[in-house]
């Protein structure tokens, strides 16, 4: 049975969702007919490069933005017609936000946010303590907000996102710019919130490792369209092929690799730079060994030396490469 067809306990339902913005350069389509369903207790990832439409989707679902057309429902309530009903059962947080009142303590800020939901003070303080403990924030609760480091401000933001015992939580790049250990503890916290409390968590991110680590399902989004939606493992399986990884020198410019995409049997490629070793790592999704051989030859013809190459299990980024023909880096470069 297709996981997307399961209707029971659907908490977020999106049909033909479209949103365009007027800009100086003309109309920009941020979402272009998105269909999606998210179930209760699920950590659902929306994975895509910057500018793919992830934040727009979260802003629509969290009632901050109206769709241009199409339908979006949260807990059965329409985002356009029943925003007040949605607001009572959701919360949201963004990694880009460090929202809080500087001269108030972390605890004071969290208590204030709890009051926006009408939570009795005693109950609010209990929740603040419980949630803070999970994130290792308890010893910093009595510090003024301005005195907290970026990582602890983000922890405050994530406690806030769950302060009202929400049924659905929208998180937009919640670990962006954080160190690895902080990011790991935040992921663990998010997972626990979904597992132990049956909350639906919709996580917009461009971090593949994050999706792999905590998402039950993931929708891959590019240029406002959902290209695929399934569990991370199933998506990688559908690729049906391992990918070819090459370390090459010197580092090519972004445009220099374009001929690779035109080779027979090549579904797409992406590259990254290993600055420490002065190498470029190229990942190519290929069908069959012959295509792999022609990739190696093409790279040599471009004047680069292949230092090493090997096959590896497909990653989510390679799923994206196979679907789009480019990686996140190339996609962001194209749209910048």
């Amino acid at each position: 049975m297709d996981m997307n067809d399961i209707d029971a306990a659907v908490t977020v339902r999106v049909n033909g969702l479209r949103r365009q913005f007027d800009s100086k350069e003309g109309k920009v389509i941020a979402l272009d007919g998105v269909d999606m369903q998210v179930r209760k207790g699920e950590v659902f990832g929306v994975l895509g490069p910057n500018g793919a439409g992830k934040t727009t989707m979260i802003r629509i679902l969290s009632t901050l933005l109206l769709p241009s057309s199409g339908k979006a429902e949260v807990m059965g309530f329409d985002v356009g017609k029943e925003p007040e009903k949605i607001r009572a059962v959701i919360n949201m947080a963004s990694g880009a936000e460090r929202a809080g009142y500087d001269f108030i303590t972390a605890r004071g800020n969290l208590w204030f946010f709890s009051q926006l939901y009408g939570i009795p003070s005693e109950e609010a303080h209990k929740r603040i303590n419980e949630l803070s403990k999970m994130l290792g924030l308890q010893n910093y609760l009595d510090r003024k907000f301005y005195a907290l480091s970026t990582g602890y401000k983000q922890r405050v933001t994530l406690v806030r996102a769950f302060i009202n015992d929400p049924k659905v939580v929208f998180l937009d790049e919640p670990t962006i710019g954080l160190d690895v250990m902080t990011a790991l503890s935040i992921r663990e916290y998010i997972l626990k919130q979904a597992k132990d409390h049956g909350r639906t968590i919709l996580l917009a991110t461009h971090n593949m490792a994050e999706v792999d680590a905590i998402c039950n399902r993931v929708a891959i989004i590019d240029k406002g369209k959902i290209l695929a939606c399934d569990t991370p493992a199933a998506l990688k399986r559908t690729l049906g092929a391992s990918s070819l990884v090459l370390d090459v020198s010197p580092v090519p410019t972004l445009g220099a690799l374009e001929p690779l995409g035109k080779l027979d049997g090549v579904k797409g490629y992406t590259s990254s730079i290993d600055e420490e070793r002065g190498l470029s790592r190229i990942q190519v999704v290929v069908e069959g060994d012959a295509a792999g051989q022609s990739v190696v030859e093409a790279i040599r013809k471009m004047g680069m030396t292949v230092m090493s190459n090997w096959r590896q299990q497909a990653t989510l980024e390679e799923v994206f490469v196979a679907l789009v023909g480019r990686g996140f880096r190339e996609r962001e470069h194209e749209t910048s």
Partner: protein
Amino acid sequence: MKLHSNPWLRTAYARLWVRAKSIYGEPLWVAINIGFPFFTSFSFTMVYRAYGLGSYAGFAILGGVMISFWGNVLWSMASQFNWDKQVGLFEIYISSPASISAILVGMSLGGILGTAPSAALVALLGWAIFHPAVNPVWPAVISVFALTLASLYAMGMALSSLYLAYGREADSVNEALHEPVSLISGVYFPSTGGFSPFPLAVQAGASLIPLTLGMDALRRTLFFGQGFGEPTIDLELVALAIMGIVLLFASSKALKFLEDKGRRTGTIAVRQR
């Protein structure tokens, strides 16, 4: 129904607490906030004393008190949502079930409570240094003061919705508004009535600003012994009450309009797409 279980009151109280706590949590704020209003009123008091009507030096001290509140309305009410928008707080308000009017009312009451110590210090210092002549009718003074603050902060609420349309330029608009409004409203001198240097048309226009009527009524009740029953005082009290109600209504409508517009155009948050 218990009052503390009312979500509107909870939100208003929480916002009041945040505003007042921010100020009382840093006592130095009071000392800093008193600076500019006190020194300005000191200078104008010296002008009254040096060049003539020394017995009305109290006008300038009263001006120092009221300019503290006007500064608070402008910098911490009118542009607050704009600032909240820049740091991501406004979208938290909107995406929560909280009433925006409760947030505004809490912000106003917190602003009044937070500004009161520095305003009181301006009055006390001015009184101690200059001993201005007063002839107060206290019930009228208190009523006028309360209504003036109510309508002034209602004006702040209305401005806060207008300011949502601005970006970083809000600070420049504040700077531009601060002095002209205190001039037209006659914070340091009577801008309406027999003492005013302004032509009638300017006085009529100035009377549309709550601060103008409030200042005039405060001067009359505090220095000239006028109280309830005086036609001008009664009229000014009624006008202040009407202005407060109209501005409250206008701010609530404007905020709703701007929230709907913001949801349509995507301008509730600073971040896009």
